[in-house]
Structures are given as C-alpha cells and as structure tokens.
C-alpha cells in the first residue's frame, strides 16, 4: 500500500514557474528587432510519490518515487520540462545584416516528474 507522504503544499510541487526576460533590461533592445523579450520559464518543485500519478509524470518517475519511499538514499524523481516550444529572433549584427533565426525547444510550456 502506498505510504501516505506528508502532505506537500501545492506551491512546493513540481510545476512551471514563469519568468519573462525583457531584452531592454539587458540593453539588447539596441540590436534585437523582435521579440521584445523572452519567456525564460523553468520547472521546479517536489515529486512526492503520492503525487506522481497525477503530476503529468512518466512511469519511470512513478517507480523512482516508489523506490525513494522504500530507500530514501535513492533520490526523488525530478521536475523537468515535458513540453517545449521554439522562438524566432529578428536581430541585426555588426555588419548591418538583418538576421532571422529560429531556435527550437527554447520556451518551457509544461513541466512534469
């Protein structure tokens, strides 16, 4: 039977934390034409065993969380991105060239254990 983990408050559980970097704060608005900033979201939070069945988790995470309960020396499952999206950047380089470049897997949309 699953040993009930001490109730972890929601805010400590694994989830996506939103963070917007405004290029103006870095002084990069002088050469980046678009976008104005970048969503530097990140994943953070606990993956207790009791929650692995609902936290958008992989089967592996479920097993690792179970092992962690049996033997705490085994680390808990970790909170990682499960859905990412690309960004495009329109900027100007030192030769006055206008460059449009795509970067995949740059923005974290969802997190899971």
């Amino acid at each position, binding site marked *: 039977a699953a040993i009930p983990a001490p109730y972890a408050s929601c805010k400590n559980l694994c989830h996506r934390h939103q963070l917007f970097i405004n290029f103006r704060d870095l002084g*990069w608005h002088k050469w980046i034409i678009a*976008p104005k900033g970048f969503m530097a979201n990140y994943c953070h939070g606990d993956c207790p065993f009791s929650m692995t069945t609902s936290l958008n988790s992989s089967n592996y995470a479920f097993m690792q969380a179970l092992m962690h309960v049996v033997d705490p020396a085994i680390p808990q499952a970790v909170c990682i991105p499960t859905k990412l999206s*690309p960004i495009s950047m329109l900027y100007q380089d030192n030769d006055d060239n206008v*460059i449009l*470049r795509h970067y*995949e897997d740059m*923005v974290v949309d969802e997190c899971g254990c």
Partner: protein
Amino acid sequence: QTLQFREHVFLKFLGLDKVPSPQKFQPVPYIMKKIFQDQETAATTGVSQDLCYVKELGVRGNVLRLLPDQGFFLYSENFSQASSCLQKLLYFNLSAIKDKKQLTMAQLGLDLGPNTYYNLGPEMELALSLVQEPHVWGRFIPKPGKMFVLQSVPWPQGVLYFNLLDVAKDWNDNHQKNLGLFLEMLVKGDRDAGVNFQLEDICASLRRSLHASLLVVTLNPEQCQPSSRKRR
C-alpha cells in the same frame, strides 16, 4: 564579470561572437516580418512546425539573412551606352555565412523606389552583369565578365527580384571571386530634347531612391537533420 561571462555564452549560443552595436536599424522587408510573425503565432498556438523549412519562400533553411548593398555609384563617361542612366557596383559581404551552412536561396532585391517617373514613353532597360575582373581600380572600368541578366522593363517601379543562388554559392565557396555585380540602367527608344531634360531628373531621383539588398537563406545541417534520420 560572471554576468559578462554568461552574456558571452548566451551570445555564442545565438551564433554571435560579441554584442552587436548597430549604428542604425536597417529596414526589415515585409517577407522577413511575415515569416517571424507566422513562427511566433505557430509557437504560441502550439502548432508544430518544421523550423528547417521556410514555407513562405518554399525553400529549406533555418537562418535568413538580409545583406545590405555595400557598393557605390560609378560616374564615368566611358560607358558603353550613351543612353546610360545609372551605373552602380553592388557588393554583398557574405563573410557572415560560415562555410558549413548550406546556401538554399540568394535573392537580389532592387527597390527602385516609388514610381515617380513621368510617363515618358521610352522603355527603361535594366542590365545586370557580373563583374569578374575589374581592369583598373580608381578609374573603375569594369569588364562585365558575364551579362547574366538583361531585363527590359517599361519604366521599372517597386522591387525587382533576381535569383543569384549560383553566383552566391560561387562567392561562398571562394570569397576572392566576390567582386560584386555591375548594375547599369539604360534608356531605350528615341527621345527629343524635352524628354532628355526630364530624363536627367529621373535618373538623379533613381540614384537617390535605389536600394539593393541580398536575401540569403542557409540550412545548418547540424540543426536540421533530414526528418527520417531524426525519426529513427
């Protein structure tokens, strides 16, 4: 110092070796804005997209560059045609394109500016030739090695496009070959004195409004595996 180091790492990730400090922003052509907006819309709506295919241009590629013309106007009475309206050396610096990237498109755009020409009747002929070995610098007298575009357009207006992929590949393979392009605009058809006067006026305004640029698309094989291999 840590922040500077981190900034350097992030710039390297963007493919830059130092923070660009442009003096002024170049005009961004409509097509680049459209491609940017389409990508942003697809990313925010979660629509999956092939980042190595530019559907608006119908070519494979994941980096677009708009290179401004760094050439200069030529004023010499030695040119072939008495009816010559404008001569310009067009030069595009391809050094920003590192050799491992594949060139998939190179489109010359000649923006002749607003159609302010008087309706004079004679046809303007636009001749674009490849300069291969200029004779003498200083009194620059180009020997157009290869006339590879001769387009006769009735009083050209707006933007004219030319496919320069083969030429750009040549230049990219061997930068020494990149001596630029010789652009000459001629006026055809017979003209009376009245028209001649207006013509000088028109050629002067053409020289002021002409804006040339080269749109280059490259494909980075390391970031753009053929889809089958990626699936495997």
